[in-house]
């Protein structure tokens, strides 16, 4: 029974995956590849690991260790990794302390691989109800992370939520203890936008990858650990910062952040794409920081669809020629790197929107092609044929309009209840429950059950069709759930209730993964086929877990009973 389930799931998944990938597979033969290893950003790890899983079927083996940006750059400099992923570039030598952050002379180039929003997941549970519609301004967030605001009933937080006061509950900021890109993005925002508050808290650092933990703040090692800490039942009142995908994967609400246009927004792929149109990219190919970002204009973008804390993340690729100075990077390895990068910035971009990132715009993909070509100039033996921006498969492209960003064009305007002085809307997080099928498996974990189980009937529904209005349902538990209905035809009925552990995803409908976005009916993102593959995967894992749980108990019991029993029998036999 179990085997049957697993086999079916595996074959279906493999077939779909190969069918999907067949079109995009570059011509490079599988035997010309070699295993490549990378390390770095945990901010980008969910996207990178998605691609790692995807390219495995093309015969490209990639091992990625998300041990933090700082360590990733260090690994690359020490030549212990073949590539690295980082949010910021090499920082050079610090004139004061002499701490050096360079590539140790190794030749490299930066390749933008994804965009995303640094989000603020929070854990506020009141009488068994989890607060899921918190809105905060950048200034309030800065004060929270600098220990100036220490209680959730602070008037500034109440003001951000249009007068709806939270109860008196101490705030516990959760920070990351390792050198991380999320910390760098966060502290850069604080230091740029609110220097007076930040410099009082941390006078020496400015932007830093190491959060200067003080006071009540809890530090955790890595994005996963920070997210786990916030999600654990012992962390009521905590707020942290991680890439949006980490919050999505455990179905946790994130703060709607105030942008310059006066709207509170979520770090959806649309809002991030719109915001990053204002990013100043270093377009000087001769600069060592070629393609790196300056986000000052993103922070203050006046488009109402902007999420202010959006940023790009980069892969550092080795561009030194083989055999020297790159003694380790063989032709096969470099071919793997090139093919992995090509997949990542093209077809791979389709996969990352629904899991909490945002695809790259055309201009950066084009520049990325140039960076991949540097691998060829380092080693002419690698094969880069059959790669064209036209067949790339990146979802931001509009056919015939190479300069437009499709995502930014179709990005929905925020709801009027998300404006300063209005609302607050309480539906925003519906997206998180319905867009990512994978999250539904985690609903079964004890933490989530305890937080949502109290009301019993907190059911959020996304209704299809409709005129873009909002429906308000009051559940028996007293929680008011407002639900936005998508305007277009791509909407699908998806009901998530805390009592059920599986989400019914209509198979075959194009919008099964993206169509239920509350404010758009647009269908793009992953194709219908991949949506089906994911939902099948979910069913299989849940049934497999259910079947395997008693097996695990049996195995443990057997481990405890069998060896002594055998010993007893042996002893008896020896005696007789």
């Amino acid at each position, binding site marked *: 029974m179990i085997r049957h389930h697993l086999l079916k799931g595996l074959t279906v998944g493999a077939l779909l995956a190969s069918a999907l990938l067949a079109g995009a597979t570059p011509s490079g033969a599988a035997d010309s590849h070699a295993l490549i290893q990378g390390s770095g950003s945990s901010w980008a790890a969910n996207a990178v690991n998605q691609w790692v899983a995807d390219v495995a079927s093309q015969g490209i083996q990639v091992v990625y260790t998300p*041990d933090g940006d700082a*360590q990733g750059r260090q690994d690359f400099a020490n030549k212990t990794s073949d590539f690295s992923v980082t949010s910021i570039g090499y920082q050079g030598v610090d004139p*004061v302390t002499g701490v050096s952050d360079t590539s140790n002379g190794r030749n490299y180039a930066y390749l933008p691989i994804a965009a995303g929003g640094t989000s603020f997941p929070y854990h506020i549970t009141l009488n068994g109800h989890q607060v899921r519609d918190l809105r905060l301004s950048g200034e309030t967030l800065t004060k929270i992370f600098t220990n100036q605001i220490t209680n959730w009933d602070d008037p500034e937080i109440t003001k951000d939520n249009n007068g709806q006061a939270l109860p008196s509950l101490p705030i516990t900021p959760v920070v990351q203890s390792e050198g991380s890109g999320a910390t760098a993005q966060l502290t850069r925002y604080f230091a740029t936008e609110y220097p007076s508050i930040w410099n009082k808290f941390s006078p020496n650092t400015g932007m830093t990858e190491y959060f200067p933990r003080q006071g009540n703040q809890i530090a955790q090692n890595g994005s996963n650990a920070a997210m786990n800490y916030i999600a654990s039942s*012992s962390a009521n009142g905590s707020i942290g910062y991680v890439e949006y995908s980490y919050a999505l994967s455990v179905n946790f609400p994130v703060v709607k952040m105030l942008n310059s246009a006066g709207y509170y927004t979520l770090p959806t792929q649309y809002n991030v794409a719109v915001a990053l149109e204002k990013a100043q990219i270093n377009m000087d190919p001769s600069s060592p920081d070629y393609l790196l970002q300056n986000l000052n204009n993103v922070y203050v973008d006046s488009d109402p669809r902007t999420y202010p804390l959006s940023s790009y993340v980069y892969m550092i690729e080795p561009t030194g020629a083989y055999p020297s100075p790159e003694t380790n990077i063989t032709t096969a390895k470099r071919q793997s790197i090139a093919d992995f990068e090509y997949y990542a910035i093209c077809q791979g971009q389709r996969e990352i929107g629904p899991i909490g990132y945002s695809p790259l715009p055309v201009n950066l993909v084009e520049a990325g092609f140039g960076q991949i070509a540097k691998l060829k100039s380092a080693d002419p033996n690698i094969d880069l044929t059959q790669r064209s921006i036209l067949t790339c498969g990146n979802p931001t492209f509009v056919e015939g309009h190479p300069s437009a960003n499709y995502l930014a064009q179709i990005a929905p305007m925020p709801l009027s209840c998300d404006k300063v002085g209005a609302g607050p809307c309480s539906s925003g997080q519906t997206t998180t429950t319905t867009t990512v099928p994978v999250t539904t498996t985690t609903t079964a974990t004890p933490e989530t059950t305890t937080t949502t189980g109290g009301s019993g009937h907190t059911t959020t529904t996304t209704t299809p069709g409709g005129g873009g209005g909002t429906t308000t349902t009051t559940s028996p538990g007293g929680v008011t759930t407002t639900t936005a209905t998508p305007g277009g035809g791509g909407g699908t009925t998806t009901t998530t209730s805390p009592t059920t552990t599986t989400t019914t995803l209509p198979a075959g409908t194009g919008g099964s993964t993206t169509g239920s976005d509350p404010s758009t009916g647009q269908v793009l993102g992953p194709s219908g086929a991949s949506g089906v593959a994911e939902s099948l995967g979910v069913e299989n894992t849940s049934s497999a877990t259910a079947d395997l749980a008693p097996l695990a108990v049996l195995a443990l019991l057997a481990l405890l009973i069998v060896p002594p029993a055998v010993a007893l029998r042996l002893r008896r036999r020896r005696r007789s």
Partner: protein
Amino acid sequence: MSTSTPETLEPRQSRVSRQLDPGFERSDRIFHKASTLIGLSTLVLTGAIGLFLGEQSIPTLSHYGLAFFTGTQWQPEIDKIGIASVLVGTAEVAFVAVCVAFPLAIMFALFISDFAPRRIKSSLISAIDLMAAVPSIIYGLWGFFLLQPKAMDLSRWLSQHFGWFFLFHVDTDPNAAVWQQSRYTSSVFIVGLAVSMMAIPLACAVMRSVFDLTPLGEREAAMALGATRWGVVRTVVLPFAKGGIIGGTMLALGRALGETAAVLVIISPAYGINFHVLEAGGQTVSALIAGNFGNATKAQLSALLTAGFVLFLITLAVNYGAAIVIRRSRSGAATEI
């Protein structure tokens, strides 16, 4: 009985000059040499580790001097490094772990050796051994996900009732209507609980084997004098096994001092000497090294290894102390570890 033997032996003796010290047989000689070599190699290995750490610590010690031992901050970015708070944290974790592990281990061991029915004895032993086989990261995750939410309430209860005692004080109001849960998480206390789970099987195995070695004659003698089972344990087993109990506890202490993965998962790294074990935040030497060595520069790595060197010396001192105690106790010979 043997009156005729000298006569029969004498002629042989006269022919072959008898060797007074025959030495070893050839096979024995090879075995003797090989085992000496291997025995010495452990000394060489330990010495080499000590030498390596010592050599690495020279630049740090010459740069920071005595401040390295008295400073409480670990901020290599601004060139401020000191291990006082980290050493205190390590000692606190080990102290909590041993406080929890010692009574549990000794009672497990006594139950297995003296009270458990024969049938389940081997099951119990394999269960304890299974505890030792679980990787430490698993204990860390177990501590984080399962233990922490429960232990948090115990921490709060302790600070409510015994908060006047500085160890159990937490810098927040434990009686608040909405109490600040996170102040009670990621603490030295919870780390100590998780580490004690790893120390228990070690201590228990040593203690149990020593309890089993109690001479049967002495046990039976006590029984014959009318002692109860508990009387036998109190008057015969425990005094006999004193060395083993101390040795097992010291082994557990050594394990607790060096534990890394579980600490790294649970603790919220914080520097500064703080004796409030129930309060969030703390750091141990091994977790400091594990968390920071990856992105350390050369100077920072040297500082980390110096911290490791200090821990090495402390562990060495603990083990020597244990050996001295064991040698002085009655059962020392039987329980040399």
